[in-house]
């Protein structure tokens, strides 16, 4: 039943856009979110609340920043958002505050009871889940449609992001290509695997992940694996830094001995890990760190494999 | 030591009832399993009305199991009849009104007052909701007086000693006003003067037509009863009047002749050999 509805909706949208730059003002905007719920709006929303930093950034990327009337507590870019009310997190939003602002649309990235409650209160909630690069591309398309923008705009923005990433990849000196990397996401340790969003960024930059595919996106690994695989560079967020040489066997690692460790400040680490439109910025931060490491002798040719 | 109580009106009622139905409890071929073992093996037994019958026997003989079975606590088995009625035909409530059971090691889980504890004995007669009636209060007061525990009515049960608690539990059993009382080791924790009080109480009950069945390991006390039933390894091995010599020989027999019963004027002393 839902599949039929989805097909109907998509074909309706397609028919509108086949007529050229469709004027969305005369048509209803209908979309299906990642949770299977159909969202329909009579016209592009003018009062938007975003409860996920990635979607806040996406809305601003589409030049609809001024339509935002409230964001979650973690949205911190662009800095003009500071004047907007913070409405809790994605899982525990301030329902009362949201209702008081009378939004036309609420963007969220999480499946939670909050969505059910907000919908029960008569508000429109669009849930978009993003795990991969492609998901962000599709999210941009969806958001463009929501705001009544032509598909081309979303496409342009996406190509821009892609371009920036390619540029960043070119900045990596030839000696750094194919470096073997270990990115630790949190201290348990949870690592970024190739099929995660972050893993995709790393492979876009031509770097090799020591974590094999098929373990899930952010597997909890045995630190012995890192010792066995001996990465060229270890990357992590500053907040996660513990005494690495205290970990058994790690003091023997080349990367630790030669201090080939990329420590990212908290807010930059957030950008790198987060599937969102600022992925190019994240890629640049990684490249920055690698170019700095050249001076301390990091060289792909040195490595045994 | 035996309290003299003037016969009440209900004694004549008891006499007429006796002639109609002489047996309080009739057990036919009862077998009860406790886990893997047979705790009771094909027990045949009749308990006469208006008398005190004492169950004695070595540890593990099945005395407690038999009392529980008669009280309907092992399920309502078909092989037991109370006052002519198979207990399977009785509702839980009517069974509870006819039989009062006082167990041996029942743990009290809340720190309640003595009065409230004895009032719980009125449950078989009370409706599902509502305060106790004046009659309930009267019965509870009487029961407390009979065990000489009335002065503690507002104390918490945990504040009393073992023996004092035992007397309160006895009052609870009395408050049920059941015709048949099943008492499992009622003399536990009681010092000799209070044991004597308990015997007097039982004699009083039977003189009013109630039936009392006790499991006792104090043989000397058991010999004050009207009837003795001797059990060994899940079977009934002897039943007879307490004062008769063959009963005494049977008792000595079941304890491997390690004890001897000596007459002492109008009662008996039981001493190890």
């Amino acid at each position, binding site marked *: 039943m*839902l*599949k039929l509805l989805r097909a109907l909706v998509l074909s309706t949208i397609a028919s509108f856009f086949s007529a050229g730059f469709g004027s969305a003002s005369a048509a209803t905007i209908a979309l299906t979110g*990642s*949770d*299977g*719920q159909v969202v329909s709006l009579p016209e592009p929303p003018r009062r938007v609340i975003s409860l996920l930093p990635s979607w806040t950034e996406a809305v601003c990327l589409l030049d609809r920043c001024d339509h935002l009337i409230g964001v979650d507590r973690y949205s911190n870019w662009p800095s003009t958002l500071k004047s907007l009310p913070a409405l809790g*997190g*994605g*899982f*525990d939003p*301030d*329902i*009362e*505050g949201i*209702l*008081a602002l009378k939004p036309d649309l609420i963007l969220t990235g*999480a*499946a*939670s*009871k*909050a969505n*059910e*409650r907000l919908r029960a*209160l008569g508000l429109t909630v669009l849930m978009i*889940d993003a795990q991969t690069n492609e998901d962000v591309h599709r999210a941009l398309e969806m958001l463009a449609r929501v705001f009544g923008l032509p598909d081309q705009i979303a496409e342009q923005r996406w190509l821009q992001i892609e371009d920036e990433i390619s540029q960043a990849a070119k900045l990596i000196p030839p000696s750094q290509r194919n470096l073997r990397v270990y990115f630790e996401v949190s201290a348990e340790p*949870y690592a970024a695997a190739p099929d995660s969003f972050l893993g995709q960024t790393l492979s876009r930059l031509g770097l090799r992940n020591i974590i094999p595919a098929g373990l*899930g*996106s952010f597997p*909890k690994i045995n630190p012995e694996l890192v010792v066995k695989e001996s990465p060229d560079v270890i990357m992590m967020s500053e907040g996660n830094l513990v005494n690495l040489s205290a970990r058994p066997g790690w003091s023997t690692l080349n990367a630790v001995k030669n201090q080939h460790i990329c420590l990212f400040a908290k807010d930059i680490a957030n950008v790198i890990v987060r599937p969102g439109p600022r992925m190019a910025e994240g890629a640049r931060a990684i490249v920055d760190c690698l170019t700095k490491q050249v001076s301390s002798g990091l060289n792909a040719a040195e490595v045994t494999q | 030591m035996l309290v003299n109580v003037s016969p009440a009106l209900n004694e004549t009622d008891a006499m007429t009832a006796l002639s109609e139905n002489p047996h309080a409890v009739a057990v036919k071929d009862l077998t009860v399993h406790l886990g893997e073992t047979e705790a009771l093996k094909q027990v045949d037994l009749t308990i006469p009305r208006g008398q005190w019958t004492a169950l004695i026997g070595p540890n593990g003989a099945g005395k407690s199991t038999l009392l529980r079975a008669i009280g*309907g*606590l092992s399920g309502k088995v078909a092989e037991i009849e109370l006052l002519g009625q198979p207990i399977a035909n009785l*509702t*839980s*409530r*009517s069974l*509870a009104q006819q*039989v009062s*059971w006082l*167990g041996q090691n*029942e*743990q*009290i*889980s*809340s*720190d*309640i*007052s003595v009065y*409230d*504890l004895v*009032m*719980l004995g009125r*449950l*078989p007669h*009370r409706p*599902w*909701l509502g*305060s106790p009636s*004046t009659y309930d*209060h009267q019965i509870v007061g009487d029961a407390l007086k009979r065990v000489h525990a009335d002065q503690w009515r507002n104390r918490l049960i945990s*504040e009393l000693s073992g023996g004092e608690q035992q007397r309160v539990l006895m009052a609870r059993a009395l408050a049920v006003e059941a015709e048949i009382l099943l008492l499992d080791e009622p003399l536990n924790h009681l010092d000799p003067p209070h044991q004597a009080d308990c015997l007097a109480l039982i004699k009083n009950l039977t003189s009013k037509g109630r039936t009392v069945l006790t499991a006792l390991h104090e043989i000397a006390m058991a010999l004050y009863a009207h009837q003795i039933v001797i059990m060994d390894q899940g079977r009934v091995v002897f039943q007879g009047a307490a004062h008769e010599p063959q009963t005494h020989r049977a008792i000595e027999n079941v304890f491997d002749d390690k004890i001897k019963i000596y007459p002492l004027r109008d009662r008996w002393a039981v001493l190890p050999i």
Partner: protein
Amino acid sequence: MTTGHQRATTWYAWMVFALLLISCLLIAAGICVGSTGFEPINTFLSNPASHDILWHIRLPRSIGAYLAGALLGMTGAIAQGLFRNPLADPYLLGSASGASLGVACALMVFGGSPFAEYWLARLGLTGAAFVGAVSAVLLTLLLARGAQDRLKLLLSGVIVSVIFSAVTSVIAFRSPGILQALQSFLLGSTSFMSWASCVVMGGVLLVGLIASAALARMLDALILGERTAMSLGVYQPVVGGVLILIMSLTTGAAVAHAGLIAFVGLVAPHLGRSFVKANHAKLIGLSTLIGGVLLLAADLLARGLLAPEELPVGILTALLGGGYLCWLMYRQPSTRQTR
């Protein structure tokens, strides 16, 4: 009738009246407390959004918090009576870990198959938590083969709790993305309560109260021991099993709507027992009212202390409840010495 008992009954009536009064005051306070402050009250008539906030958010939240607390208080009193243990709480037989597992499963299959999405849309996370809680208790009953053996039942409850927690951990481990959602459920919150939640919880509370009234005598008799209670004609293990099932419904409803709230189900009967001891009909009634008051008070603090930010209410009940039990523990020696 003794004067002691007359005094006890009027004292009880006054307690109930006082608790009902406090409850009304707290609910009224609940309308005033929220992240937007007094604004909605001031603009109640002019602004339809204010009306929505007061009528659709604050009032159902407050009443819902009260009902959830009442459910937990009632179930706690029943659990302590049925298991003859003053440390029993409503989560004894695995309902807490069952609810967590239900939520974890729902979050995990989300976005998977359309079939899963369909059921998720129908049940919601609330329904998943409820189903999980009730299933856990059913499993406990099955494992213990009925309610005959109290010790076996308690042990089965522990086993089911541990296993369900482990499975929840495995799910979270495999899909670490659900961790945050799971945690926000576990910490407890009333911010998602609606009038529908109030109706459901109110209905379940009514069922629970009727069952309690019918079975209060049984719980009274159980003070003397299971066999004695049987001999008094008021207890059968089967009835105990029915009571456990009803408890699973009441706990499930509370947990599904409010999350895992600690200590309310443990502390409310304790407080009730300082006024009423042997009478479970009265104790359960008191415990229900006290539970409601406790949770609503904690919720008001949760909403008001760091406004406009909200603390998870489970943290407050843990702090307050834990503090009370600490005090209780250190108070005991002095009372025992009076002899």
